[in-house]
């Protein structure tokens, strides 16, 4: 039994099928990137797994059938970070992070002191230390995403679903966030499904990449072990004519760089 299994997942909007009979499995402690062209169904896949969108097929996390769960049980098992949080009222960073404890609280219970301490330590961990009492609305977009990430991490859920967390972030925050998620997964034996816009970020910070096309997974990439040419071939279907190269940065770390071929001749 794998840690997390998706079986025959299909989602349709009316007659239009977005995802058709999609299946995959993941191990624990894995950070999995989802790549695909715009409209390929990345967000739909994440929303279907966490039950926001109606779907057929099953998602099983450690023998728990996610489809059967109440929102509260589900929230304990997996957590979802939208592209942008809908928070639009004045609220402190600490109170925002404390929202994450909701599934662990009784109906009329309020967050305890320990929960507050844990929240503050996570705020520290995501790099927002000293901003506990700052108004969430006054944060930069990147800081907001980090704050929401902290809210997600407090729940100790085993499955993290992140929808393009890097889209609002600048270069520095992108890598910081992904490495944070990756090390979190290793420490807590959790798995993260991250839909990503930036293929280079995906290649350099995920354990595995799922490529979405035409409603199912067209191919899978293991950036650490696959050969550059096989990865190039798979990525071509999404990004057109590209080439991959190994580069070494000044501190000696090896990275994969993606370059566009036929730069000024239109696509392909």
């Amino acid at each position: 039994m794998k840690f997390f299994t998706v079986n025959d997942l299909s989602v349709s909007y009316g007659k239009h099928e977005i995802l058709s009979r999609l299946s995959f499995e993941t191990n624990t402690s894995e950070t999995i990137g989802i790549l695909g062209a715009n409209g390929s169904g990345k967000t739909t896949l994440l929303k279907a797994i966490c039950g926001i969108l109606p779907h057929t097929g099953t998602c099983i996390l450690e023998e728990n059938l996610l489809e059967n769960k109440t929102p509260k049980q589900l929230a304990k098992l997996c957590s979802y970070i939208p592209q942008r949080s809908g928070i639009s009222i004045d609220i402190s960073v600490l109170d925002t992070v404390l929202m994450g404890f909701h599934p662990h609280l009784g109906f009329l219970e309020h967050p305890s002191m320990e929960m507050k301490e844990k929240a503050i330590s996570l705020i520290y961990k995501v790099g927002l230390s000293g901003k506990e009492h700052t108004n969430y609305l006054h944060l930069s977009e990147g800081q907001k995403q980090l704050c929401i990430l902290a809210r997600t991490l407090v729940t100790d859920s085993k499955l993290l679903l992140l929808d393009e967390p890097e889209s609002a972030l600048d270069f520095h925050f992108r890598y910081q966030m992904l490495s944070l998620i990756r090390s979190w997964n290793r420490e807590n034996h959790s798995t993260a499904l991250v839909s990503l816009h930036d293929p280079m970020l995906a290649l350099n910070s995920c354990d595995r990449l799922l490529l979405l096309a035409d409603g199912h997974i067209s191919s899978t990439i293991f950036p650490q072990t696959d050969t550059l040419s096989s990865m190039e071939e798979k990525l071509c279907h999404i990004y057109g004519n590209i080439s991959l190269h190994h580069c070494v940065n000044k501190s000696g770390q090896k990275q994969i760089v993606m370059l566009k071929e036929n730069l000024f001749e239109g696509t392909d």
Partner: protein
Amino acid sequence: MTLNTVKNKYYYIAGAILLIALAIVSLYVGKYPLSMEKLLSGDDLQWRVFLTLRLSRTVVGIMGGFALGVAGFVFQTVFRNALASPDIIGVSSGASAGAAAGILFLSGSLAITLSSFAGALGAVVIALFLSSLDKSGKNSTIVLAGIAVHSLAQTFLMCLKLTADPERELASIEYWIMGSLSGISGYSITANLILCILCLCILFLLHRHVIILSTEEGEARMLGVSVTTLRLIVLLTATLTVASIISLTGLISFIGLLAPHTARLLTKENRIQTMLLSGFLGGILLCGADILARSVSATELPVSIFTSLLGAPFLIYLILQERRSL
């Protein structure tokens, strides 16, 4: 910008003190000549006027304003809309139509209270039912359904007004819509106040949930909230709070809008204390407005005139202040 909790503490205390002070003033102001000596000497009539009229009116002023302020806070938060008010899901127009129907077809103030209460509740239940037909459970669906019910209730009200006798029934309907605390007496408020306090308790207990509802639907759901059910409970409770008050007093405008706005502008927070401050401000507004409504002229004036005359300039001042600080 750090949220200033210390400064905010002073706002809460100042709000509470001002509310108490106004309550005391309200006990002193009135048409009937009450005197402390006669009250202390146990004059039966004086006591009766004091308890059933003066005190009741003060209590309804404070509780009513408090309830409208808190409910307004809840509506604005749940709908993520600074302009949301109980009217957004048809509470006020439903209550008006109900009251008008009561004035036309029933008799007695109790019947009018009941029918306006039923009208408010009915409108909201219809609006929520209509919105539940759309399974996506979006806020905007509720707002749309609310607008539909609101205009339906308005049409119904217009029809009732058209058939009303202009000399008496129409005047009654107009007076009801303007709102007044003049008819309040200790004999008719108990049930409404109990319901109001009960609902207020529930709203305060659910504060944490109300805040989570202010995020987007999917987000709230992933925080472990059964959005549709919880929103239904919260909206119905807030509606009951409002209905229990306006069925006694008639429509009271602006408090549900002004009080929460002001509380938020002052504190820049949305904590449970902010909700309390919103209630305090509502109580201050209604009690203050009612003191003026019964004392500036020999006759009773509609209380809504004063709620907005007192509240609006203050709100404008706060907004200008806000602009300057940016």
